[in-house]
């Protein structure tokens, strides 16, 4: 009996294949955007793989964190590569997640019956940014220390639960070894436990409802998921792998001097690009706007914008396409301008 027949008898391989062949993916001139969800998934899988490898040598602790990352980068064979891939892939994962989110927004793919797919995706993006924020501290170098300190100070200014949340994450009033332990627990245990079921829900919903074609596409053409779309998807993953290998080996991730609470914040310090727009907003809002605290206002504005964004399936029920496009365009412009402005502000300072 062939392996195929043996497996078929036990797990129903033929049913699965016929399901894949029946599954169709819309084919139109915007179809290229469908690849970004798969790319995000690919980079996430790379994160799991390299993260599991890093855990083998990483030792959280005020002295051991920095020392073990230094050992990974300089003594363990290919350690520099594994760490570099982990950092690059984290950035590429969030970048493709943003492209994915905006394409879904503009294609109005969040409309019924896909509201839960949209919300689970927003949840995944939030957790993904949490992964980025918590992972950034773990090497315990100067930049990691100050970025986390600033990030938590900003969180502290958020309305309502900001102060409580920041204190809880920090494990006290200052960023220290307790914060490091908490962030490690978050990064390597808590967030994965929350992320995995949400990811499975998201993927299952995508399977259940299929890909949505944008309303502007009237001609209903489609291609079979297997083999046509599957092989294209695989090819895109293959390109992503090559890109990742190139970036990680040509520009290996740096490790700065060890965190030192007595040192002043380095010049030009700034958060990762995906937090840059918030950072810049807080920088240019004055300390007091009328009677309101400037930072509180900034975080409030950002939070309100995020809530409106997430609730789009509720305020666009199919008749507000133009408004949605304007809001989307506005969001893209505001985020881009703030981010570029932020980078221009720190350029040449560090």
């Amino acid at each position: 009996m062939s392996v195929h027949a043996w497996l078929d008898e036990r797990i129903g391989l033929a049913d699965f294949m016929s399901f894949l062949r029946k599954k169709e993916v819309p084919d139109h001139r915007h179809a290229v955007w469908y690849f970004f969800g798969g790319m995000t998934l690919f980079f996430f899988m790379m994160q799991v793989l390299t993260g599991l490898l890093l855990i083998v040598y990483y030792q959280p602790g005020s002295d051991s964190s920095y020392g073990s990352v230094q050992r990974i980068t300089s003594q363990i064979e290919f350690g520099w590569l594994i760490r570099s891939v982990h950092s690059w892939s984290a950035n590429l994962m969030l970048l493709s997640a943003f492209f994915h989110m905006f394409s879904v927004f503009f294609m109005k793919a969040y409309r019924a019956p896909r509201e839960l797919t949209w919300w689970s995706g927003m949840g995944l993006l939030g957790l993904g940014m949490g992964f980025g924020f918590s992972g950034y501290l773990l090497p315990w170098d100067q930049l990691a220390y100050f970025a986390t300190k600033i990030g938590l100070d900003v969180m502290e200014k958020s309305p309502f639960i900001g102060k409580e949340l920041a204190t809880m994450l920090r494990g006290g009033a200052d960023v220290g070894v307790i914060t490091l332990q908490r962030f490690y627990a978050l990064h390597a245990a808590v967030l994965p436990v929350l992320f995995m079921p949400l990811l499975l829900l998201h993927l299952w919903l995508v399977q259940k409802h299929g890909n949505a074609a944008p309303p502007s596409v009237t001609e209903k053409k489609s291609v079979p998921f297997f083999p046509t779309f599957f092989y294209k998807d695989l090819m895109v993953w293959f390109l992503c792998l090559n890109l990742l290998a190139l970036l990680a080996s040509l520009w290996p991730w740096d490790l700065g001097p060890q965190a030192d609470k007595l040192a002043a914040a380095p010049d030009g310090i700034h958060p990762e690009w995906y937090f840059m727009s918030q950072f810049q907003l807080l920088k240019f809002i004055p300390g007091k706007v009328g009677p309101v605290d400037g930072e509180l206002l900034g975080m409030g504005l950002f939070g309100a914008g995020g809530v409106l964004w997430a609730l789009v399936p509720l305020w666009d029920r199919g008749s507000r396409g133009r408004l949605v496009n304007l809001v989307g365009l506005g969001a893209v412009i505001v985020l881009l301008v703030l981010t570029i402005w932020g980078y221009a502000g720190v350029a040449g300072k560090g």
Partner: protein
Amino acid sequence: MTDTPQTAAAPQGLSRRALGQGLFAAAAALYTAALAWPIFRYLKSGTQGADEGPQVNEVNLGAEKDYLPGSGKLFLFGSKPALILRRKDGHFVALFATCTHLGCTVKFAQDQDRITCACHGGVYDPDTGRNIGGPPPAPLKPLVVSTDGGAVVVRRA
């Protein structure tokens, strides 16, 4: 996706298809190796020398008078556990304390005047380290003891 061109040029198409599949398999094998090799080296490199530690040839165990006749205690010879025994006639015996059965650390049972292993009931003779009961297949490895000027010094045999 249609099969028409392939059926039209059947003999040539087949060999081209086989070539394509061969190249695909070769590329896939190369990529798998390029991914697996760094992971293999990464996981292997941290283990080298981790259990050996620096080579130790001699350990000073302090004053001879501190050891009562008929007693025994564990000490570390480098990174390996070892036993030092002072027999009732006053002479010293030193043995590596790793059971030759499955590597547990043995202990000196003073009340029975035997070396025993708690894991699977191995028994050794305290004078020679010979395996005299239970599953151990070989004697405990011996060390050499000297008492120069009142200090107990253990060396490799």
